[in-house]
């Protein structure tokens, strides 16, 4: 079945440390790929997206993501995490017209 997988339910990192959140998808063709962030009690905010072209995309708040076709992955990275980055992060794909599918999310905790 077609799916979006975020293998890590919860990640804890120290402030200032680097971060990588994993995302894998199982669609046949290259879909549109997104990363969203959700702060507690809030809606989702787009961090970055990949449609085509350069496989390393830059987003807001210092985040970047790399699309790797061979691994069907679109991992999110940040070189130095800030306490305000604590939130839930969702990977999403649009694979068929308007059908956006979300991963289950990764909750990020930042230790002082």
């Amino acid at each position, binding site marked *: 079945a077609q799916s979006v997988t975020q293998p890590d339910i919860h990640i804890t990192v120290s402030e200032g440390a680097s971060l990588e959140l994993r995302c894998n998808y199982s669609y046949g063709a290259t879909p549109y790929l997104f990363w969203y962030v959700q702060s507690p009690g809030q*809606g*989702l905010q787009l961090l970055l997206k990949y449609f085509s072209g350069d496989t390393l995309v830059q987003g807001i708040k210092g985040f970047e993501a790399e699309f790797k076709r061979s691994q069907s992955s679109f991992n999110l990275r940040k070189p130095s995490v800030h306490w305000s980055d604590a939130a839930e992060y969702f990977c999403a794909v649009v694979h068929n017209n308007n059908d956006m599918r979300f991963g289950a999310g990764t909750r990020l905790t930042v230790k002082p």
Partner: protein
Amino acid sequence: NAGVTQTPKFRILKIGQSMTLQCTQDMNHNYMYWYRQDPGMGLKLIYYSVGAGITDKGEVPNGYNVSRSTTEDFPLRLELAAPSQTSVYFCASSYGEGYEQYFGPGTRLTVT
């Protein structure tokens, strides 16, 4: 611009009651969406619309109905509330296929 607004923010329903969740956007987006978010499950698409008068089912449409009489509004109707519909509901809109979706703040619904 207010973006995407949703009302109410919170609601408690008894089993069998009905209600309408309201969603309005002021960005002149053609595409609008309804999602539900359950803990640990990510977001699942309920219904979407690509323009006034056009709606289509998403991944989990059972128990819900929608209408789209104007570009701005996309209400979601629950006719016979069931405990399984306890969730947080998000409305979103976008310029078009594959474009960033802008999310409202959500409606937390409890059915008891």
